[in-house]
């Protein structure tokens, strides 16, 4: 019996009427650990923004199971490093979901912040001003904030960019701990080895989903080859996507056959079929 954390229902996200994530169908199970993989511009970050609600769907929707608390680590944070704040201030922002605007920090909250800093290896950094942190230290501080947020669904957008190997190892430990605690984690990653080693499930994107399921079934040479060769550019003359049956054979050449017309939320779905069994139907490598 699958217990959905997120349900994508023909979700299409994009900018300026051009689709960036196209017709995504499927379910993210509670407690799953999913890597999102794909070339630049394949819609990975857009998907996370859509889940958080920072951009509105152009079609379809994305349902969270009620009461799901989200923590989101963006690819490009909008943190003002010149702002007069200390590490402990930014990590304490993670208490927001619990405290809201006016709640007072308890000793327990302060302990949660201190513990999070220890977990990411930033013990002793509490009072350091933000503008004295290195890029990797900043990323760890943001991980600590995610820890403090104590969320059910954790979305990480390229969390390991410009991070050294040791820090990646430390942060992976934290991700596995989240997984062990039954939290749902989705991470955008660019390192295939890392995905294969640490992420049981993978969603391979190339604007439309190429494949989604067990990592070993998704990251096949054929699927990867396909995902590398999708057409990244927007086309002003790209045909309008007219509803569920009309978008076969659009000029992006992406395969829409998967996913449509199946019920993915019927409860009995096992791993391979519940995501629309995209992996089985991904186009072969005709352009390889």
């Amino acid at each position, binding site marked *: 019996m699958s217990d959905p954390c997120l349900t994508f229902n023909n979700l299409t996200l994009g900018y300026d009427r051009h689709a960036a994530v196209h017709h995504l169908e499927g379910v993210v199970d509670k407690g799953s650990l999913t890597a999102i993989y794909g070339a630049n511009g394949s819609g990975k970050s857009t998907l996370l923004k859509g889940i958080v609600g920072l951009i509105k769907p152009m079609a379809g929707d994305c349902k969270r199971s009620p009461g799901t608390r989200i923590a989101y680590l963006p690819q490009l944070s909008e943190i003002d490093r010149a702002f007069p*704040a200390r590490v402990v201030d930014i990590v304490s922002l993670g208490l927001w979901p619990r405290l809201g605007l006016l709640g007072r920090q308890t000793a327990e909250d302060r302990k949660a912040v201190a513990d999070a800093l220890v977990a990411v290896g930033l013990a002793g950094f509490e009072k350091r001003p933000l503008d004295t942190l290195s890029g990797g230290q900043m990323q760890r501080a943001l991980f600590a904030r995610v820890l403090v947020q104590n969320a059910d669904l954790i979305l990480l957008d390229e969390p390991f960019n410009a991070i050294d190997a040791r820090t990646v190892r430390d942060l992976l430990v934290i991700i596995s701990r989240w997984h062990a605690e039954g939290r749902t984690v989705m991470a955008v990653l660019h390192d295939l080895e890392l995905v294969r080693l640490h992420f049981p499930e993978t969603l391979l994107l190339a604007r439309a989903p190429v494949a989604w399921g067990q990592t070993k079934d998704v990251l096949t040479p054929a699927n990867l080859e396909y995902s590398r060769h999708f057409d990244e550019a927007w086309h002003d003359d790209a045909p309008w996507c007219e509803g569920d049956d009309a978008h076969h054979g659009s000029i992006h050449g992406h395969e829409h056959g998967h996913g449509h017309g199946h019920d993915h939320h019927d409860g009995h779905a096992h791993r391979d079929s519940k995501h629309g069994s995209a992996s089985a139907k991904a186009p072969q490598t005709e352009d390889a």
Partner: protein
Amino acid sequence: MTMFEFLIAPFTEFGFMQRALAGSLLLSLSCCPVGVFLMLRRMSLAGDAMAHAILPGAAAGFLLYGLELVPMTIGGLIAGLTVALSAGAVSRFTLQREDASMAAFYLISLAAGVLLVSLRGSSVDLMHVLFGSVLALDNSALTLIGSICVVTLILLTVFWRALVAECLDPLFLRSVSRLGAPVHFVFLGVVVLNLVGGFQALGTLLSVGLMMLPAAGARFWTSRVETMALLSVAIGMVSCAAGLLVSYHAALPSGPAIIFAAGAIYLFSVIFGTRGAIAARVRPSRHRTA
């Protein structure tokens, strides 16, 4: 002349000096922390723009009712809020950034204000609206400034955490709360409220001075927001007292004297502040290994 005669006597002997001091101290208490957030949000010049935006409202009040506190205040409030909300809305809901939309709306507003003033008033009237008269604060003006001060302090206390979060990491605030946009508009409203409060005492041109100069000066002494807000209030209050004394003894206009005092403290802070120019230039005599 003894120290007492120089520093204290002007305030004990003259009612208008007492009222001027009380009004400007209240104004410091409420304007300066607002200025700190304006500065941290990189909106220092937006405060200036907003001060100009108040002009047509105040001018309309002046045209219709003469030099009366209430209509000019209400007019200023309406004009200021209209410009602030329009500029904020354009930047929130379109691609244009707030600096550009703010400039557009305040220029429209300023032009309207100058046209209104020229409809009837002489340039003397315009000078009054632009430069204010802290020495002519009556009790109703003091009440107004006092109320604005109370409202501002309450709003700042309630929204403090959201204001800090919105400055520090707006994307994070958007991901955990829907407060981002409302807080922004509440803040713009508070800015307008304080500028309107200030223009009675200092005029529209200089009211933003008491908001920005102490905040900009405080930045050179501390790296905590809370301390910065408190320090800016202290700087503002010292500037007010000093400016009033200079104005009294040298028979100079009080508004510019106050702002000039704040400006002097700012320049001092730039150079000698613990995070100022000299501190940044001086090579430390020794450093720790880690």
